[in-house]
């Protein structure tokens, strides 16, 4: 019934089911989502605003927006330390980790999904159990390991212990399990051996999951601070995150420089996210639903 024709005294709750609620729901959910977006975006906006302030302005109480944007903070921050080198190191580290995790996660995930071997389920559960161990717990053993190998402050030391991701293995296993077995059977009858079946049929069909894995692995590696901080010492081996943290010393903190470097460091990830949102969503679905 239309609002204008409603009889006087008729109660709202006596209207046909859900009419009012149906009108309210989109507005309500938009408001909630906007609020959530604001909460999520606020730190980034604050970081961007701070990156354009002077040293003293950061601590003034006049507001969170800069009075006169200091764009010079950006070139000054990026030349205060060898950020070009840091970015290169971050790129080498992230790309190597992505490549390594794709190799280990796809092969191990396929084995857990498709190859029958004794104790498969138990080994897989053991792998999963390691996801419950906090990252910081294994930092020291990892450090001791690369130290024993003489790999401190080297690329191999920085990269090697990041090459396996249990989350990635889990993601790939779940995806491989969704592929129709008949495709692999057909390839076997066509004469393909196990590795050819994996490379020629299963892996190409798992491209969406591999893309998701690559994206998450890249972002994780790019924003990793703790491990590169431990595994590297020289400025030549530093990654961007460690360089940003270096603006924060015992006696001095240069917030505008740190925030300016932070904004630049976030840009590649933000761009990546803009173009690959669907893979993020798919990754979360694969991890969460199955």
């Amino acid at each position, binding site marked *: 019934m239309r609002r204008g024709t409603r009889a006087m005294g008729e109660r709202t709750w006596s209207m046909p089911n859900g009419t009012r609620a149906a009108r309210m729901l989109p507005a309500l959910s938009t408001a909630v989502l906007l609020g959530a977006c604001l909460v999520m975006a606020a730190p980034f906006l604050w970081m961007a605003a701070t990156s354009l302030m002077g040293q003293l302005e950061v601590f003034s109480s006049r507001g969170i927006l800069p009075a006169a944007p200091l764009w010079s903070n950006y070139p000054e921050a990026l030349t205060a330390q060898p950020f070009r080198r840091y970015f290169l190191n971050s790129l080498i580290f992230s790309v190597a980790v992505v490549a390594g995790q794709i190799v280990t996660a796809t092969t191990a995930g396929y084995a857990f999904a498709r190859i029958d071997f004794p104790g498969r389920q138990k080994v897989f559960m053991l792998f999963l159990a390691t996801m419950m161990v906090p990252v910081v717990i294994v930092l020291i053993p990892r450090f001791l390991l690369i130290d024993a190998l003489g790999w401190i402050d080297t690329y191999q030391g920085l990269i090697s212990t990041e090459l396996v991701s249990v989350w990635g293995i889990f993601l790939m296993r779940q995806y491989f399990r969704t592929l*129709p077995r*008949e*495709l692999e*059977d*057909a*390839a*076997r*009858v*066509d*004469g*393909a*051996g196990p590795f*050819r079946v994996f490379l*020629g*049929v299963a892996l*190409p*069909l798992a*491209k969406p999951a591999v893309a998701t894995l690559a994206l998450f692995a890249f972002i994780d590696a790019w924003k990793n601070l703790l491990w590169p901080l431990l595994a590297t010492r020289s400025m030549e081996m530093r990654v961007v995150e460690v360089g940003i943290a270096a603006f924060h010393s015992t006696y001095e903190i240069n917030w505008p420089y740190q925030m300016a470097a932070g904004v630049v460091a976030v840009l590649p990830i933000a761009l990546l996210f803009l173009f690959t949102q669907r893979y993020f969503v798919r990754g979360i679905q694969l991890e969460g639903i199955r």
Partner: protein
Amino acid sequence: MTPAPRGVTLRGVEKRFGAVTAVAAADLEVRPGELMALVGPSGCGKSTLLRLIAGLEEPDGGEVLIGERPVNDVAPGDRDVAMVFQSYALYPHMTVAGNLGFGLRVRGTNRAEIEERVDRTARVLGLQDLLSRRPGQLSGGQQQRVALGRAMVRDPGVFLFDEPLSNLDAGLRLRTRDEIAALHRRLGTTMIFVTHDQTEALSLGQRVAVMDQGRILQVGTPDAIYRQPANLFVATFVGSPPINRLRLSREADGSLTGGPFRFAPERPLDAATLAVRPEDLAIAPQGPQPDITPAVRQPDSTATVLRIEALGSEQRVHLDGPADAAWVVRASPSVRVSPGDPVHISVAWERTHLFGPDGSRMGPAPRPIHLLRDT
């Protein structure tokens, strides 16, 4: 050049999945160049048997031979077999040409030969214009042809078909069935065709193997399977409409009775089942001129017409009898009956079947001793 066809032999092949026996001591001999149809209800083990031949499952016992060669320990790709799957199992990331040539590429065939064989196969199946398309861009019928082509392109010694027609609509299924038969005639290759559709099995197979609960119950020509079923399951499973049955029980004098019929069996039986195909019965309306239909000269029983399926070339008359059975008669459209009409039934006794208590066939039923009419 098409290679010489190979036979397939199964000797006591068994396959278990946990506590479930999928295939139990299967013995089967498929002759070189033969088209063997493997038929049975869902879950009877026929697809597992095909996968055992293909090498996609390992037998728990027995031996599989392709040609003269035992292949239990031979990889699927080295068995000289090709398989067409129910879902077609086309590689979705490859074009039609890629799908057709995959098996050849895996075997290291040179590029020129792959192209030549893919083109030749595509011409035979009318796929020339589709070679650059992906499976997702094809209709069900086209996908089926690609699956067939992928099997053909390698010139295998044995073709295995795992219910390849079940995803097609009725018209396309009939056409594809004819094409497979024509392909078999042209290639002369050994083919094993799995289906749950008994009409498909009888129309396509040179011989038919009927399976149930993991066992091969009977192997024979379609006519033998239909006319001389080895047991009650085969008799009931094969034929549409299904064979008519009547339970017979033993009387004190040793005779077997059921409804209006009484028989003197050659040897004492506690119970038996009389079975008769719908086309081996004749009916005529009761009334002042019972002999209006020449086929019913000596009525054996009576019943009432329940309903009629008029199919044009024939009519299927459903009866509420004899006794508590509900028989179906395949009659000529010239037989004039209507629902509710009382009719005489005449049985072609020489074409009936008598099955013992364990379901095995004992031969045709003897002529009844006394005809108990109007029961």
